């Protein structure tokens, strides 16, 4: 899809980015010590820290990923909101205060305070680095998704711009600037999301969301001997057909342009339904709905095909309240799209066919995560696995954990967590309205679910769109900054200084941190480019699973089980990393979206949580029991 940037959008965006850079430079002058670089000197007010938590947490995954997933798959996207927020309960009730008491700069310090073990420093340092990198990928992908409609730039430019700005921010200032930048952006994101939700309610639901909304065509067809023999339109001619999975796709030609249609049976009559598709030809050319991208034949979709208000079918609702909005969608029918891949001769076709879906199915789990009709044991296991990973992942994320070291006391750590839960919880409730709003407003770009929320904002005017996109982009900047501070802390503080025993002065530590930040940033740019197009919330779900498997068993058992030994912690961290990454790399979603193959993945699970987290816990217990010191606990 091609987007034309507006000067106003570019102006607002540039002003935002410059403000962020200005703020960073201001705080850079104040950061000279390692304490200042990694933990903002431990002087941040709990209220500011709480909103900064929200700024960190409500990253690309929440605003872009969840809204996008709800726009594509309804309630299933909201499961992420529920899980992400529930994770904060673990953070608040079990982890926040003790970690604050035991650590100094990084969670490795807290983990290692009882044991003084080189092995823990190594394991936790590596785990911080890997989890941060896993979490960095979706942020960078999100940045790419944002700049496309905002500045009209290609995905990789978005990733490169974010990478460079963040490297500049982190390499100059560290945690103080990251905190204040996140505070401002977290607050603004919540305010503007509230405005966007209000705009959705005022606008209501309309079968034809805007004047030039492209309505999809239907043509009748006749089948003989299982093949389409004729069609009920003289404008098109039959040009071929492909059977893929349990569906038949028909190729038609008109004015020299080929288009693909899916077939359905309605009351005994075969109908062809217009589909959207991208064909990759043998020589590598990409055709969007049969023509080069520049011809703009690939259009935005998503609308209600039937709107029912209190039992009455209507064409539009007019302004409605939040509850009425939800109950109306529940009674209506929405045109969603299902993605499929097939080969036509020497061409590779990615096709999205119309899937009219009842509101009843949209408003409950099951469209993405099969738990009801068509569910298998594995699909249910995938669902449980995801919910487990989201619940346990939050309090194991290094960039969340380091924020506990920016406030003066444990009490402040607790209070800032509560501010975070309240603001994040409020935002997550809004994701339902923003996601469903995008679903019925004809703004969906089928190539990237991540763009749904910004494109919805664009529907309401370029000012709202520019502000929201600039804030979301700046939020990505801040989250990436936080992650890079956490990663550079792992490399420079945990590994270099503590594990390898490199003697560095205070200033030397800061310099080592900054050099690490540059390296991690460059690597993140590379990853952000290769993971283009995958839903960012899905990717974050995977990062959560890695974090939960690698770090949480170690953190919880260290705090609550006296027999935990250093060896137990080290083994559980490594087992957690290997098991979770191993399962992800051989999972069906990664096979389809990253390797772009239809081959069967060796591991049928998409989220590794259900296997990797218990495995990591069991490893910790078994190894700890085997390595008990005689006559005493490990302490």
């Amino acid at each position, binding site marked *: 899809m091609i987007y034309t940037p507006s000067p106003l959008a570019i102006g607002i965006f540039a002003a935002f980015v410059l403000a962020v850079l200005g703020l960073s430079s201001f705080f850079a002058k104040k950061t000279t010590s390692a304490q200042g670089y990694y933990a903002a000197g431990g002087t941040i007010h709990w209220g500011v820290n709480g909103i900064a938590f929200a700024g960190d947490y409500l990253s690309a995954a929440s605003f872009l990923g969840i809204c996008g997933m709800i726009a594509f798959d309804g309630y299933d996207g909201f499961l992420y909101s529920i899980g992400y927020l529930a994770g904060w309960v673990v953070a608040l009730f079990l982890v926040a205060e003790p970690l604050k008491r035991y650590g100094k700069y990084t969670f490795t310090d807290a983990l290692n305070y009882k044991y003084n073990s080189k092995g823990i420093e190594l394991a936790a340092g590596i785990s911080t680095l890997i989890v941060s990198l896993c979490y960095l990928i979706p942020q960078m992908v999100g940045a790419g998704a944002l700049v496309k409609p905002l500045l009209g730039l290609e995905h990789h430019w978005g990733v490169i711009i974010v990478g460079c700005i963040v490297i500049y921010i982190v390499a100059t200032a560290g945690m103080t600037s990251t905190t204040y930048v996140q505070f401002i952006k977290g607050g603004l994101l919540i305010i503007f999301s509230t405005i966007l939700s209000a705009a959705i309610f005022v606008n209501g639901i309309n079968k034809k969301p805007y004047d030039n909304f492209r309505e999809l065509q239907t043509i009748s067809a006749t089948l003989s001997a299982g093949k389409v023999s004729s069609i009920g339109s003289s404008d098109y001619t039959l040009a071929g057909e492909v059977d893929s999975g349990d569906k038949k796709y028909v190729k038609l030609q008109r004015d020299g342009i080929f288009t693909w249609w899916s077939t359905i049976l309605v009351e005994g009559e075969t109908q062809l339904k217009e589909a959207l598709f991208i064909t990759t030809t043998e020589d590598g050319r990409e055709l969007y709905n049969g023509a080069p991208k520049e011809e703009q034949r690939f259009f935005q979709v998503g609308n209600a095909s039937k709107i029912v208000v209190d039992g009455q079918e209507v064409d539009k609702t007019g302004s409605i309240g939040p509850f009425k909005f*939800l109950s109306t969608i529940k009674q209506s029918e929405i045109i969603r799209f299902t993605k499929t891949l097939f080969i036509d001769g020497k061409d590779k076709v990615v096709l999205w066919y119309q899937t009219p879906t009842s509101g009843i199915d949209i408003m409950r789990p099951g469209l993405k995560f099969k738990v009801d009709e068509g569910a298998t044991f594995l699909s249910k296991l995938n669902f449980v696995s995801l919910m487990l990973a989201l619940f346990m992942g939050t309090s194991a994320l290094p960039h969340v954990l380091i924020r506990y070291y920016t406030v003066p006391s444990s009490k402040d750590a607790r209070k800032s967590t509560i501010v975070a839960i309240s603001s994040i919880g409020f935002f997550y409730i809004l994701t339902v309205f923003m996601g469903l709003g995008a679903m019925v407003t004809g703004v969906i770009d089928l190539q990237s679910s991540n763009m749904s929320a910004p494109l919805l904002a664009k529907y309401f005017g370029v000012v709202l769109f520019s502000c929201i996109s600039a804030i979301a982009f700046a939020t990505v900047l801040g989250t990436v900054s936080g992650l890079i501070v956490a990663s550079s802390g792992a490399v420079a503080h945990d590994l270099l200084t503590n594990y390898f025993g490199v003697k560095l002065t205070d200033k030397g530590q800061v310099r080592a941190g900054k050099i690490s930040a540059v390296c991690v940033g460059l690597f993140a740019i590379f990853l952000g480019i290769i993971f283009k197009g995958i839903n960012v919330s899905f990717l974050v779900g995977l990062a959560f699973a890695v974090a939960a498997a690698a770090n949480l068993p170690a953190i919880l058992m260290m705090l609550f089980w006296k027999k935990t030994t250093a060896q137990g912690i080290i083994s559980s961290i490594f087992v957690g990393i290997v098991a979770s990454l191993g399962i992800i790399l051989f999972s069906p979603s990664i096979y389809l979206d990253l390797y772009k193959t239809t081959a069967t993945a060796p591991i049928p699970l998409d989220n590794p949580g259900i296997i990797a987290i218990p495995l990591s816990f069991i490893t910790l217990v078994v190894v700890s029991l085997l390595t008990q010191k005689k006559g005493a606990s490990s302490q």
Partner: protein
Amino acid sequence: MGGHGPSTDWGVDHASDYKAKLGVYMFLVYVVIYAGFILINVLTPKLMGVIIFAGLNLAIIYGFGLIVLAIVMGLIYNYFCTKKEDELNKEGAGK
């Protein structure tokens, strides 16, 4: 290097045991309710579509409820922790 002190010194917290115990109890309450959500989805998914009130189904009510409950429980936890901290740490300082 390895072990070193906390980022800022703020004295001994006499309420930490109480807070840890309260935290575990509240965590367990939330876990049960969260697990209930997962179990209904897996075992009786149709139940999630049942209308509860104002045209909203159980999926929406339970989902919103889990978010609101986390906020409410956080506030309750903070209230009791702060109360205990004020009480015990004041006594502790006087000893």
